[in-house]
């Protein structure tokens, strides 16, 4: 009996090792059907600050770094490229603004803009706060394109499916969505069309990068599509499988269903940023000639011409202490990266073509 137990244990361990090896081998050596034109860049650590909490960028100002701490919804944090001190800005909200749910933020040199999924919008200039209510759309992420205009990502439903669209909102007492751009209809479009919304203030261009397929959109501020860009990977379609994972009983006896992705999401593009007429996309995919070991210790960034979406070249940003890069911005000759709770500022020079 003892012998049998020993055999079972040994075989179980061996089977687990073999299964693990096969599962990771496929991912590391997976051929994605594209090549990168990798260039060498100067990238050298200049300063580092550990923020102790997970953060993300807000907006993209010229020399100021503005941060959102996920666990602190009512403040924003500011620093400069030296990362020597971190200023806290306590935001003001009217009592009608629900701050217990998601708060989305954007910033320009004059104001901090906040919204929540219930359509409340505030504009805080450091002293006073303006309050607005969107009545005909549920919005989440948004960008301020002027002090009185925002473009937001909204949800809409068709044939019992949720999808996403962009809406242009004039901040006024009677806020209505006077312009819109709907994202392609498809099954589970709410997840399939998920992506990152960004605004290039210098060129007045709205950009939207899909997370799960290698495409990005460039629109003007009236939501006219200027071009649809294709990233250098070969992923053009997305297959999303959803599942209802929970049922919550309401006080009135009804139920609230929650939906999520049932299978692991295949992320194609993780983040994008804009600088000096170029679009930088943090790719999640390895090109065929890249070595798995190099790709495992670096992050590939693909660079595109903002005018027409044409691919220019790619470069690597290294992991910091083995930590994965979440987001980055390029300000002049500096590249700032968020690695979990660490904010790293690099001296950065990219070869111009």
């Amino acid at each position, binding site marked *: 009996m003892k012998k049998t137990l020993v055999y079972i244990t040994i075989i179980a361990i061996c089977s687990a090792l073999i299964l693990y090896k096969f599962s990771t081998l496929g991912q590391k050596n997976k051929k994605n059907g594209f090549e990168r034109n990798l260039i060498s860049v100067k990238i050298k650590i200049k300063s580092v600050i550990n923020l102790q909490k997970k953060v993300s960028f807000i907006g993209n100002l010229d020399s100021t770094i503005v941060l959102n701490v996920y666990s602190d919804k009512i403040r924003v944090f500011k620093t400069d490229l030296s990362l020597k001190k971190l200023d806290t800005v306590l935001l003001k909200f009217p009592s009608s603004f629900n701050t217990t749910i998601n708060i989305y933020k954007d910033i320009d040199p004059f104001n901090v803009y906040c919204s929540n999924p*219930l359509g409340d919008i505030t504009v805080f200039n450091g002293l006073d706060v303006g309050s607005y209510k969107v009545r005909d759309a549920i919005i989440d992420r948004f960008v301020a394109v002027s002090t009185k205009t925002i473009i937001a990502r909204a949800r809409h439903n068709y044939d019992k499916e949720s999808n996403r669209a962009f809406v242009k909102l004039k901040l006024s007492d009677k806020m209505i969505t006077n312009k819109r751009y709907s994202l392609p209809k498809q099954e589970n479009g709410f997840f399939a069309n998920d992506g990152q919304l960004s605004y290039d203030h210098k060129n007045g261009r709205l950009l939207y990068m899909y997370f799960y397929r290698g495409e990005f959109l460039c629109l003007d501020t009236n939501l006219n599509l200027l071009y649809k860009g294709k990233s250098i990977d070969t992923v053009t379609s997305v297959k999303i499988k959803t599942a209802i994972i929970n049922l919550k009983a309401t006080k009135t006896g009804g139920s609230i269903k929650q939906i999520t992705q049932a299978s692991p999401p295949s992320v194609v593009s993780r983040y994008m940023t804009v600088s000096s007429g170029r679009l930088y996309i943090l790719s999640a995919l390895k090109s065929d000639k890249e070595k798995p070991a190099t790709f495992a210790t670096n992050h590939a960034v693909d660079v595109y011409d903002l005018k027409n979406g044409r691919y220019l070249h790619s470069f690597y940003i290294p992991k910091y202490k083995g930590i994965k890069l979440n987001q980055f911005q390029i300000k002049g000759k500096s590249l700032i990266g968020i690695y979990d709770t660490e904010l790293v500022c690099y001296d950065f020079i990219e070869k111009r073509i």
Partner: protein
Amino acid sequence: MKKLLFAAVLATVAIAGASSANALTLYRQGSSTPIVCEQGEATCIDVIGQGTKVYSFPNATSTDTPVDPSLYQNLEYQL
């Protein structure tokens, strides 16, 4: 020998079963770390069904009871 064969089959089935039992768990791409739907930029969990507002452009057409804000969840995760 029969015992050994039985042990091998049992172990393989048990491990395969265990590895497929997590099909509904979200995992980061190429990683065994589960996705935590708490903070990040991508939608992780969304609220649907009764109580959720239904809108169609250009104007709101639904008279659904708005979802109780305390139940509203649009959880997100870091890519």
